[in-house]
């Protein structure tokens, strides 16, 4: 990362869309703003246009399917055997098994090797596949090459590789997913720092408000960032603090990864309407028509915000052949039907203690993305506030009194109002209104905020105090006597406390840890988003089932030649050091307590 670069860049590597923004430091500090970079990309075969968003879709054609020349780009004129962006997105649904989408969500699927070629995920054999990490790398490479082509000219110091780049990740990403994301960026030649998306949305708000932001909040406010995009839902709580008479901000809680978003809503509408067409007209839609219907449903969903009165909308799918009128299929949907399906289906009124339903455990569950099984976003929100938020002295959860919306779904006025209503109902105390912070651009806010965050890092300004969004633990075999037939019980040693600051390190007080010379030593590894009070070195003998989440194991290999003659198989006592890098990734080191050696613990990622 270059701290003197001309441009300070923000990249939103989104589940459904990517965006790139920048601050030009050639502009005097007081006058700086964030600019949107328009990304040249294929919009059809052989057609290149610059658009503000790069859809996160990858098209992997077979050899004779398409002429590589028409997939070429101004900076790759020799032809290409893949395409990313708008053209790839438009092909989704039309060429099954050839389009990779939602690659980012696959970076945090349990038990999958994220470096193995598994996408597009399909039960049937698929001709070409890439790994989730490679897909992310290809999107970043496209952004890099597009930038270099449009912005760098012949000046190597203006290339994206030389700029100061902030890259956003879901707040719910754990250390492994963050490491993989930073790794994909490194493979694309980019040194980046990571920033949580809801925080980036909040920085966009700070950018819009300027110094006046303090007029909109007061000490003790708890602000909910409610970020619902095409594929994911991400919640964060930020509190307003005061020190020396100045207001500050602190991110106090992040939620779990919830795979639920606008695409689910469009599909729900589409399936509902397809069933109605079959019932009323006796016509069955094919996949192509269903995709068209989902498209029409999205448009209808967006119109719902503008027309709140009761009415009927006609959804039409044009004929697939040249007979557009003759082959057209129409179905009517009333405003109340849409409200029932969308508002009450995805945002039902519910009590604060109503928790989202856990996934049903099915004996033979096909492996794949862990979609949320409960579509009730409001219940996920209730679970988040109860599990992750603070509690009053009487044990009742602390409720937010302000909200910042972000993400495509929250463009809808109707849905924003429902979230506000639900929060208000939970508060009971109706004397204070929920305040809604004017949201930044729903599609570009995260990217805008991330460039602004980079600018704040460089020249100063209000920052959100955050640090590690989880606490981390390694498993240590307990000293309990072994019981035949039972696995030895495990205690969890906290190695990273919640909120540990980026760019800091901590020595973990622990006795009796050792690595075996000449062999691989493996440690079980856990994280928690709810145990926010554990200090480094504390040992948990037991915990509630949902408090700690097991992660891929950590391993270290001690080459015999590095251990000053200790015989193979002997135990080297080690001390632990945890480092949260400036980038925002986690490193764990073992130090030889009797000598000089130190070894890094690596994530075992082979699934």
């Amino acid at each position, binding site marked *: 990362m270059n701290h003197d670069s001309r441009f300070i860049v923000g990249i939103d590597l989104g589940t459904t869309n990517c965006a790139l923004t920048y601050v030009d430091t050639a502009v005097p500090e007081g006058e700086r703003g964030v600019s949107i970079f328009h990304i040249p990309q294929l919009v059809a075969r*052989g057609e*290149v246009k610059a658009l503000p968003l790069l859809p996160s879709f990858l098209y992997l054609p077979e050899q004779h399917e398409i002429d590589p020349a028409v997939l*070429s780009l101004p900076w790759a004129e020799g032809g290409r055997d893949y395409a990313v962006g708008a053209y790839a997105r438009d092909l989704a649904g039309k060429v099954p098994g050839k389009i990779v989408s939602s690659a980012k969500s696959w970076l945090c699927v349990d038990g999958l090797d994220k470096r193995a070629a598994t996408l597009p995920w399909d039960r049937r054999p698929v001709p070409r596949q890439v790994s989730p990490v490679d897909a992310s790398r290809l999107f970043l490479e496209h952004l890099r090459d597009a930038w270099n082509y449009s912005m760098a000219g012949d000046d190597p110091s203006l290339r994206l590789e030389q700029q100061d780049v902030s890259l956003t990740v879901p707040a719910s990403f754990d250390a492994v997913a963050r490491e993989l994301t930073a790794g994909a960026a490194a493979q694309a030649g980019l040194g980046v720092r990571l920033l949580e998306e809801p925080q980036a949305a909040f920085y966009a708000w700070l950018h819009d408000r300027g110094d006046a932001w303090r007029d909109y909040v007061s000490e003790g406010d708890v602000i909910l960032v409610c970020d619902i995009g095409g594929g994911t839902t991400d919640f964060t709580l930020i509190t307003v603090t005061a020190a020396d008479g100045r207001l500050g901000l602190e991110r106090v809680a992040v939620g779990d990864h919830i795979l639920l978003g606008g695409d689910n809503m469009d599909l729900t509408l589409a399936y509902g309407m397809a069933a109605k067409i079959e019932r009323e007209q006796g016509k069955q839609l094919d996949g192509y028509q269903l995709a068209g219907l989902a498209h029409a449903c999205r448009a209808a969903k967006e119109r719902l915000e503008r027309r709140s009165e009761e009415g009927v909308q006609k959804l*039409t799918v*044009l004929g697939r052949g040249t*007979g557009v009128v003759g082959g*057209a299929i129409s179905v009517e949907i009333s405003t109340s039907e849409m409200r029932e399906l969308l508002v009450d289906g995805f945002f039902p009124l519910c009590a604060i203690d109503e928790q989202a339903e856990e996934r049903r455990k099915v004996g033979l569950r096909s492996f794949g993305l862990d979609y949320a099984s409960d579509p009730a976003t409001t219940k996920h929100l209730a679970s988040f506030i109860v599990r992750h938020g603070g509690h009053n002295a009487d044990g009742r959860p602390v409720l937010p009194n302000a909200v910042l919306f972000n993400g495509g779904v929250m463009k809808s006025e109707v849905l924003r109002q429902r979230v506000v209503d639900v929060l208000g109902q939970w508060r009971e105390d109706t004397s204070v209104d929920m305040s809604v912070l004017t949201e930044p651009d729903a599609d570009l806010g995260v990217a805008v905020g991330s460039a602004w965050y980079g600018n704040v890092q460089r020249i100063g300004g209000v920052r959100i105090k955050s640090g590690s969004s989880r606490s981390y633990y390694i498993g240590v075999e307990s000293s309990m006597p072994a019981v035949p037939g039972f696995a030895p019980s495990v205690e969890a040693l906290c190695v990273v406390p919640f909120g540990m600051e980026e760019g800091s390190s901590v020595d973990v007080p622990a006795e009796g840890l050792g690595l075996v010379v000449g062999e691989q030593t493996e440690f079980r590894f856990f994280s928690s988003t709810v145990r926010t009070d554990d200090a480094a070195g504390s040992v948990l003998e037991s915990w509630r089932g949902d408090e700690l989440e097991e992660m891929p194991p950590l391993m270290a290999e001690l080459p015999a030649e590095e251990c000053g003659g200790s015989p193979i198989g002997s135990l080297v006592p080690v001390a632990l050091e945890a480092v949260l890098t400036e980038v925002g990734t986690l490193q764990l080191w073992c130090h030889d307590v009797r000598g000089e050696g130190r070894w890094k613990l690596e994530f075992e990622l082979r699934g």
Partner: protein
Amino acid sequence: MRRFMTACKAFWKILFSGDLALAWEKPSRGEVTQAAPDAEHTEDAGILPDAVYTLVLLQREGRLIDFLKEDIDVYGDEQVGAAVRQIHTGCRKVLDDNFGVSPVDERGEGEPVDIPPGFDSGAIRLTGNVRGDPPFKGTLQHGGWKVTKVDFPERHAKLDPAIICPAEVEL
């Protein structure tokens, strides 16, 4: 009126300069010649790549060629109306994404307007009882439309400019 003249000038400047410079004798950009597989036909037909490309866009987003080529007399207004809403949405997207289109005269239709001496007869058409020399007083019947920018994608030389949309075969 001054604002109007400036707008007119900007319009011609865009049409006749820079990237979009189109001369009378050569209405299409020379570099977009192609090794069309069907060269025999396209050459004779005098394909103007940018003109045909406008059809490409209207067909791709709005299915306009399908619509105009279809015999709609056999369908009722309800069926036609439903399809037209979709076609309208798509074609409008083409205009919004690829062209800047704005009224020549922004004043409301039906309002009285003054036409000064030296007015641009290309941008304003006088109808009705036209006699003598300007200034004239009249009523704006139609605000006119003008293109303020054209923002087409860059297109690869290998594309056949005669293809509005390829035939589609599902396997």
